[in-house]
């Protein structure tokens, strides 16, 4: 902490930059030795020179179409130079004149404390005296304000079934990201690909990760024995945590991992959560294989895909 220098002490105040004009030595006189050690002035000079050079460099490099490093470098130098000059100069002057001033202080007498309230009461008394009208005014204002909430309804549709349904329909063929139907021969055992319902490539909530497990690895969940023909299994790719795409496939552990928050799902065990913040397994899409050997959905997902919401269990 700098201790305040008292005012009016000769020679105590004023650095080289704060010198009074009348303190200058007369013309022609030899420079007198410094009367006090103040901060040097060269940073100001240097700063201003850098500013001029930087500003010219900035303009030239901009006109010549130089890279961002040049344009930005020169501009930064110009700004920093001027900043150093002004801040240094101001910092030197700061000790020059130290003054005291009173802080605004709260009223300490009861009269002063209540002066505002009394004035307000007096000025608005004309309104509050008409008690019924005044209350009606308050009620009317409140009812009006709340009535405006309905405008929010215009901003988005009320979600009815949209969170519970996807584009999958009974018999919808699985296609890859190019729109080509996926046949039983398209995916060798041990392979995986991203699939969509036919006609809905790129669909956010219908996308599935399709796996063709090596014979015998996959154990279907009870009640889902018919969902995985020939060990083809499809899980929703929308993380049940906060909806990122569960895109990381760890083939050694047979897990699907969400790159956002590391929720890990055991693919061989109904996409059960084995680690991470997700609360429930990835929904499984019931599959079938049609006469042409194409993979199709038996139906839509039997539960909502993606993150949970309060009435998710109502269906």
């Amino acid at each position, binding site marked *: 902490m700098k201790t305040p220098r008292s005012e009016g002490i000769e020679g105590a105040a004023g650095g080289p930059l704060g010198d009074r*004009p009348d303190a200058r030595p007369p013309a022609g006189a030899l420079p007198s030795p410094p009367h006090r050690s103040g901060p040097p002035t060269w940073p100001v000079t240097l700063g201003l020179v850098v500013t001029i050079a930087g500003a010219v460099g900035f303009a030239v490099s901009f006109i010549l179409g130089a890279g961002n490093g040049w344009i930005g470098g020169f501009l930064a130098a110009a700004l920093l130079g001027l900043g150093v000059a002004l801040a240094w100069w101001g910092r030197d002057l700061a000790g020059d004149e130290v*003054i005291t001033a009173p802080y605004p202080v709260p009223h300490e007498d009861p009269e002063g404390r209540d002066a505002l309230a009394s004035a307000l009461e007096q000025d608005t008394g004309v309104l509050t005296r008409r008690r019924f009208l005044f209350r009606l005014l308050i009620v009317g204002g409140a009812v009006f304000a709340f009535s405006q909430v309905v405008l929010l309804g215009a901003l988005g549709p009320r979600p009815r079934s949209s969170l519970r349904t996807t584009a999958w329909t009974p018999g919808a063929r699985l296609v890859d990201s190019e729109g080509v139907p996926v046949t039983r021969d398209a995916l060798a055992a041990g392979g995986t690909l991203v699939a969509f319902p036919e006609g809905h490539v790129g669909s956010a909530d219908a996308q599935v990760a399709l796996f063709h497990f090596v014979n015998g690895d996959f154990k279907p969940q009870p009640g889902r024995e018919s969902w995985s023909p020939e060990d083809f299994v499809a899980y929703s790719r929308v993380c049940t945590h906060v909806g990122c795409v569960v895109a990381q496939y760890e083939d050694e552990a047979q897990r699907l991992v969400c790159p956002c928050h590391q929720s890990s799902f055991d693919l061989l065990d109904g996409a059960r959560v084995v680690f*991470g913040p997700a609360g429930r397994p990835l929904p499984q899409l019931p599959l079938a294989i049609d006469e042409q050997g194409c993979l199709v959905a038996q139906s839509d997902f039997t539960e909502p895909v993606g993150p949970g919401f309060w009435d998710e269990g109502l269906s």
Partner: protein
Amino acid sequence: MSRRRLLNSLGSAFGVRRSPLRPVARWTDRNLGGGSRLVKEELRHVFPDSWAFFLGEIALYCFVILVVTGIFLSLFFEASQTPTVYEGAYQPLQGSEVSAAYNSVLGLSFNVKAGLLIRQVHHWAALVFVAALIIHLLRMFFTGAYRKPRVINWLLGIVLLITVGMNGLFGYSLPDDLLSGVGLRVAYSITESIPFLGPWLASIMFGGEFPTSGIIARIYPAHILLLPLGIMGLLGLHMGILWFQRHTEFPGPARDDRTMVGTPMVPAYALRTVGYLLLVAGVLTAFGAFLQINPVWLYGPYTPFDATTQAQPDWYMGWMEGGLRLMPGWDIRIGWFLLPAVFWPAVILPGLVFTPLLVWPFVDQWALNDRGFHNVLTYPSQRPGRLAVGAGFVTFLTVLLLGGADDVFANIWNLDVVTVVHALRAMVFVAPPLVAAVTYAIARKRSERWPV
């Protein structure tokens, strides 16, 4: 130096006999009805001298730079998700279908002179803005500047911090790159998790079920108009109250709660603060010139079926990201009712962080039975209890912030991410009280040895 001399010297510095300020001042006085008297008094407005008082100014100047660079960017940005084919200067993405918003961001980055520089300065300014606000807040907290008569300004500051953070999140979402789209998806899911209202609120905010085609067009006016207006209003109030109340001051000779000691605004303080504005601008410009930030062309455009690893939000959202990662998936089901586990870290945790900050001045008044007003600050170690609470709070948020990058740490230290998460989960509960206790003991000893 007398003011008259100063005015004359401004003119005489360039060889002008009479200062041009004189006619200007006369004109002002005539047109403001004697208002120059007020201005004259305010020239002598006293500023106490401490480096700590410039922390808030860094935040203020970041906002100035954000507005200036933001105006430039708004001339090129297109708030639309209409599919277009990218045909700009960046080779790897040429010919790919991207949204108009993403296309315009690539355009202003690669095809507009100094465009990338301005964009990077804008992003850096946002990151430093929040950092400066937080450091300023910590300074206020640890020196007791939140006490009466500055409770209102403390509260305004907290609301300002929340508003700025939200606008940062909006800005992060606008380029419609892969990371910003994933961020929006997470925001949608978090809103969805609110009991009873969630799905509807999410639909109202996004205009339907995610992903919607109009979300960028909705965020844009909020990012460049609504929230900046709010920030400007809050800053104006904050600064207006500060101007009226004056700065606090550290203890020192001749200083007490009724008397302040400092330097008049003109010329010393005015020079310094303009200098600091330029220094902040210079440092941010250097960052923008030499430190790459948010290279959206590497992330690629947002599609709802792509993902990227080691994705992080901007640093000030890191504590919420950490909460999302560290919270176990404890969904609560009662019959058909579901309370998703996400609700706790994403909705309750921010409340747990900001509510204590908002009520702290009142708790402090109550705990110390302190009814007085304070203009002289206390040093952090003078109040071991406050120091301990603050240190514990900061530790809590720091552990969460580390949690937001658990996969990065796992990668760096070659650990299993499971191990990192388990360690951090334990630290959330162990580290804050531990740090608080140690801080308390040290501060207690210090204040006993050097009582103030």
